[in-house]
């Protein structure tokens, strides 16, 4: 058992980066709009199929397809905000979260059904010419594609951090997250900040989906699993810091790897959910606080 642990830990760390990226988008949307979009996993799934389509139809390299998928998902996010989530931001917080959950739930079902229509229910992954490349360090095998995904995930989180810290609208987004009424009074267009945050969150979901489709596999029904992963990471990491979210993703990846080694592979998923439920119940009020 101990012999496989280092290998499992490395693989856990590699997928943990994607958990962090998946959670970053959801955390941004939840932290800023106080809207819980449970269709986030389905948006990740759509991003993955975007890369799959680009690769299968025009041979675009999956990593290069980020350049197309992220803008397309940002547009989709804007459309979703205008048509759905923008309607409920006028409610006070509790009603807003509950209604957003219901809307996200309906959206998740619809997107899942749509994906089955478009791409069938089969599991797919993108197999590039370099898909099998690995490096070996001290007996530990590291798949290069997954390593590249981890680095890219970290770079995207860093980019988001810079965007929120330096960009004029990034600061507006943070102001709207802290106190929307005060932000409104200082002349910030809060609705536009909301729109931007939601669009950026959707773009991040798309990026996560692309990386999932190249290192792992996608199918129309991965949405719920990824939504849960993102929620677990947010519970672990709290809101407010994108690097904290990334670290939370790594922690989840490692926790899964350890539990898979100790209890056996099939219980990989259970440990995160148990942590999630316990933390949620232990800190019911202060949970998503900063």
């Amino acid at each position: 058992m101990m012999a496989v642990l280092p290998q499992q830990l490395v693989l856990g760390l590699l997928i943990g980066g994607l958990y962090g990226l998946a959670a970053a988008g959801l955390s941004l949307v939840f932290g800023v709009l106080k809207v819980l979009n449970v269709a986030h996993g389905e948006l990740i799934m759509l991003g993955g199929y975007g890369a799959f389509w680009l690769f299968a139809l025009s041979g675009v390299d999956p990593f290069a397809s980020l350049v197309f998928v992220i803008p397309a998902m940002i547009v989709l996010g804007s459309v979703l905000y205008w048509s759905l989530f923008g309607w409920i931001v006028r409610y006070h917080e509790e009603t807003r979260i509950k209604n957003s959950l219901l809307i996200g739930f309906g959206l998740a079902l619809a997107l899942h059904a749509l994906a089955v229509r478009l791409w069938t229910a089969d599991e797919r992954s993108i197999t590039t010419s370099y898909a099998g490349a690995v490096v070996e360090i001290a007996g530990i095998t590291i798949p290069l594609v997954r390593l590249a995904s981890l680095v890219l995930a970290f770079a995207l989180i860093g980019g988001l951090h810079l965007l929120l810290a330096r960009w004029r609208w990034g600061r507006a987004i943070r102001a709207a997250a802290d106190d929307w009424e005060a932000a409104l009074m200082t002349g910030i267009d809060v609705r536009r900040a909301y729109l931007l945050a939601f669009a950026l969150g959707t773009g991040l979901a798309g990026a996560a989906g692309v990386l999932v489709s190249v290192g792992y596999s996608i199918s129309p029904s991965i949405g719920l699993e990824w939504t849960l992963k993102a929620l677990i990471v947010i519970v672990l990491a709290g809101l407010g810091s994108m690097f904290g979210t990334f670290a939370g993703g790594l922690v989840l990846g490692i926790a899964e790897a350890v539990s898979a080694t100790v209890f056996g592979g099939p219980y990989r998923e259970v440990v995160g959910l148990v942590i999630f439920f316990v933390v949620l119940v232990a800190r019911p009020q202060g949970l998503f606080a900063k």
Partner: protein
Amino acid sequence: MTAARWAAGLVVLALLAVVPLVVKRDDILNFLVLTLLTITLAQSWNIVGGYAGQVNLGHAAFFGLGALVTRTLWIAGTPVLAAMIAGAAVAVAFALAVGGAAFRLRGAYFAIGTLALGEILRITVNNTLPEISTLPMTTIATYRLATRYWLALGLAALAVIAVAWLAGSRLGLGLQAIREDEEAAESTGVGVLRLKLLALVLSTALAGLAGGAFAYYHISYYPSHPFGPHWTFDAVLVTFIGGVGTLHGPILGAVFYVLLKEYLAIRWVDFHLLIFGALFIAIVLLLPGGLVEAGATLRRLVRRS
């Protein structure tokens, strides 16, 4: 008025009870069994989700537990009704074990917390019982669809009566007070946690019974199948589309849902979820009362003109 309603309900029940004697087509009976099970499951969800306003996204766990226990006991030789009651008891025991913790969560947090609970159970069952469960040949030889139909009808009637009683009871009023404003209810002397737990017991007992009926009805399935989140999602969709927190909503929603699902499944698998997902969003945004409210509005308009 109420007496007339009870009488109308009894007439409908009597008419439905003679259906297997008249209709010999298995596809129609299967469709009706499915509709009746959906009514039971949606109505059971409606108690906690509709009347108490707590969106439970882990409802499948209780349906699944009922199915698992009933199937195991029944195949081992226990009479099916006794097995179903045992299944419901296990579902309720699990509800009481986790209810106190889960109800510390409010609103959307309760929803995602229960979603996690349901998934924990599903994955665990999937890991421990990976083999498909098929009825023994001797049972299949004596399998009669009509028996399953009457069982499902009895359960659906039980669920509807339970909710009809609940709606007018002190418990039901307390639950609705909690739904509208938990703090206000608490401060006027409503025992919030106790009432929520009572609602959960009623809800999960019915869900466990529905799971038991499923285990008795279905010839062959994976033990983790009744734990699948789609059972919860079906109940949520049906209740909201019909009219959440109403007696007629889940019935209306279930008939509409199963009808469209079966009709569309002939040509497109799962396509109904695209329509129902969109319809669900539209109802949440524009018509929170669902079909029941739409019907009432329509009647008012007709009467006025």
